[in-house]
């Protein structure tokens, strides 16, 4: 392994549905300003940058080029990483790799999405490899998760009400998070009567469109002390993609998350993730997905997660502190979402999450990124190494 690395500063914007008061570049600058302030450093200390967004949703070609000058990147090393919804996760791994080489003193990573500028981007549908085939079907994350939820209900025996329970729990968490976009004060009835997008996905079940950005700074061990006395160590990271093969999967509810999580657990000797990891920030683009993801990261057996909600075991101060920030159904600046997960997980480890802080000592936290039809990124954080 290369050098040990730690996150020394994090920052995110107050996520909103529309931000006409800033350009995409200025939105990023806001998040970066906060990350630098959090780390107590100036832009001069940064010597490598890595950034990204889901650019087709933005409608720009290689947007890093015109965003970088606003973000203090002129004269610095850097490049853009992109991979649909996991963009933020893949670029976070990029930043970890850069820091772990020990070649750089401080690496800044940021990601963004300004969904208010990208009306209808997701109707673009289809995929590059299958352009003349799937392009005729209106495929989007909504249809993707409708399909997953349909199969999940079929296999697990849970009902729509359980999905509503998940959504209400997420909202309760989001209410305590000042950065979250949707803070609605939901009840099960409200969710159950919301507009149906594609059975069984209701509008409230789906992640919103968000204008937001998030940034963090990661350093190799030798420079960590210079910037902070509360470093968040990065224990491991792993990307796992499956290239749009959802229709081929034996189990349409599954993603690569279980594979990725098991890989990291094995490498790190984690045998009981439920006990050994105290904070979870998992990218669930729709509330039914949260159930499946809980099973895939090893919190409970397959198709049993809905019972945990029935028993009221999930919440910030409950047995399973899953997505204390309110998760993706509350805030979703697509490209930046995995970075938001990472930022929130780091805040939990530091004990700086404020109202949505999980009580007790957080030794380990797990953040993930999700994209496309089952692409996943795992980021494992620790308080001490």
């Amino acid at each position, binding site marked *: 392994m290369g050098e040990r690395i730690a996150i020394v500063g994090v920052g995110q914007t107050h996520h909103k549905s529309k931000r006409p*008061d800033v350009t995409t570049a200025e939105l990023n*600058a806001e998040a970066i300003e906060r990350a630098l302030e959090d780390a107590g450093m100036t832009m001069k200390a940064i010597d490598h940058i890595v950034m990204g967004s889901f650019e087709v949703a933005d409608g720009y070609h290689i947007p890093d080029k015109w965003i970088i000058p606003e973000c203090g990147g002129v004269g610095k090393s850097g490049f853009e990483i992109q991979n649909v919804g996991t963009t933020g996760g893949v670029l976070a791994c990029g930043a970890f790799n850069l820091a772990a080489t020990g070649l750089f003193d401080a690496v800044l990573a940021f990601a963004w999405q300004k969904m208010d*500028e990208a009306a209808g981007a997701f109707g673009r549908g289809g995929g590059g490899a299958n352009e003349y085939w799937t392009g005729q079907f209106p495929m989007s994350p909504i249809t993707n998760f409708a399909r997953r939820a349909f199969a999940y209900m079929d296999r697990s025996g849970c009902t729509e009400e359980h999905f509503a329970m998940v959504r209400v729990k997420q909202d309760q968490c989001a209410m305590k998070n000042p950065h979250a976009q949707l803070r609605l004060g939901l009840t099960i009835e409200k969710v159950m009567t919301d507009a149906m997008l594609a059975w069984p996905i209701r509008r409230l079940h789906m992640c919103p469109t968000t204008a937001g950005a998030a940034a963090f700074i990661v350093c190799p061990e030798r420079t960590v002390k210079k910037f902070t006395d509360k470093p968040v160590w990065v224990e491991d990271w792993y990307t796992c993609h499956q290239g749009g093969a959802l229709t081929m999967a034996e189990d349409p509810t599954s993603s690569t998350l279980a594979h990725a999580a098991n890989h990291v657990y094995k490498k790190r000797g984690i045998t009981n993730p439920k006990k050994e990891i105290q904070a979870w920030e998992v990218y669930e683009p729709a509330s039914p997905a949260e159930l499946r993801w809980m099973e895939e990261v090893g919190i409970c057996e397959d198709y049993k997660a809905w019972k945990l909600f029935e028993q009221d075991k999930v919440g910030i101060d409950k047995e399973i502190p899953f997505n204390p920030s309110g998760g993706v159904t509350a805030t979703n600046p697509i490209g930046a979402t995995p970075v938001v997960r990472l930022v929130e997980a780091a805040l939990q480890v530091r004990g700086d999450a404020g109202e949505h802080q999980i009580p007790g000592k957080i030794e380990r936290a797990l953040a993930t990124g999700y994209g496309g039809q089952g692409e996943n990124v795992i980021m494992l954080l620790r308080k001490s190494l």
Partner: protein
Amino acid sequence: MGKYLPEISEEPIVVEVPSHSSFLVSTGATGTKFLSAIRDNKKLTGLKCPSCGKVYIPPRTHCADCFVRMSEWIDLSGKGTLTTYTVVRYQEPYMPKEPPYAYGVIQMDGADTGLVHMLGEVDLDKIKIGMRLEPVFKEEREGSILDIDYFKPSA
């Protein structure tokens, strides 16, 4: 099942697929202020960095060198000097004018940067680096950089 089908043609085909999109661009508070000054007062303005003193046009919120927020607006005369130019001789659907026409980088008086815009009222063969230029505004202005029709040689 599992029958091999030799009779189907394997001749490669090419398909045409149109992709329509309509993306919104926010100019933000800074851009709006700059563009409104052009629209309402035919005035070009720049932002000055409180740290290094550099004046930027087109403006941006953060100084590219110092990464500090800028808030001091400077009125510019709009006049400037041509530092480089090019004549576009091919046609694309997004071009604002009929080619051939010229782009120039105009180093603005009172600013440390140049502005890219089109050149007009000048013979394309007679454009010279170093020539003095001033903006020509459109009659109907909507709050866009295209409210400046082009830059012309100033007397």
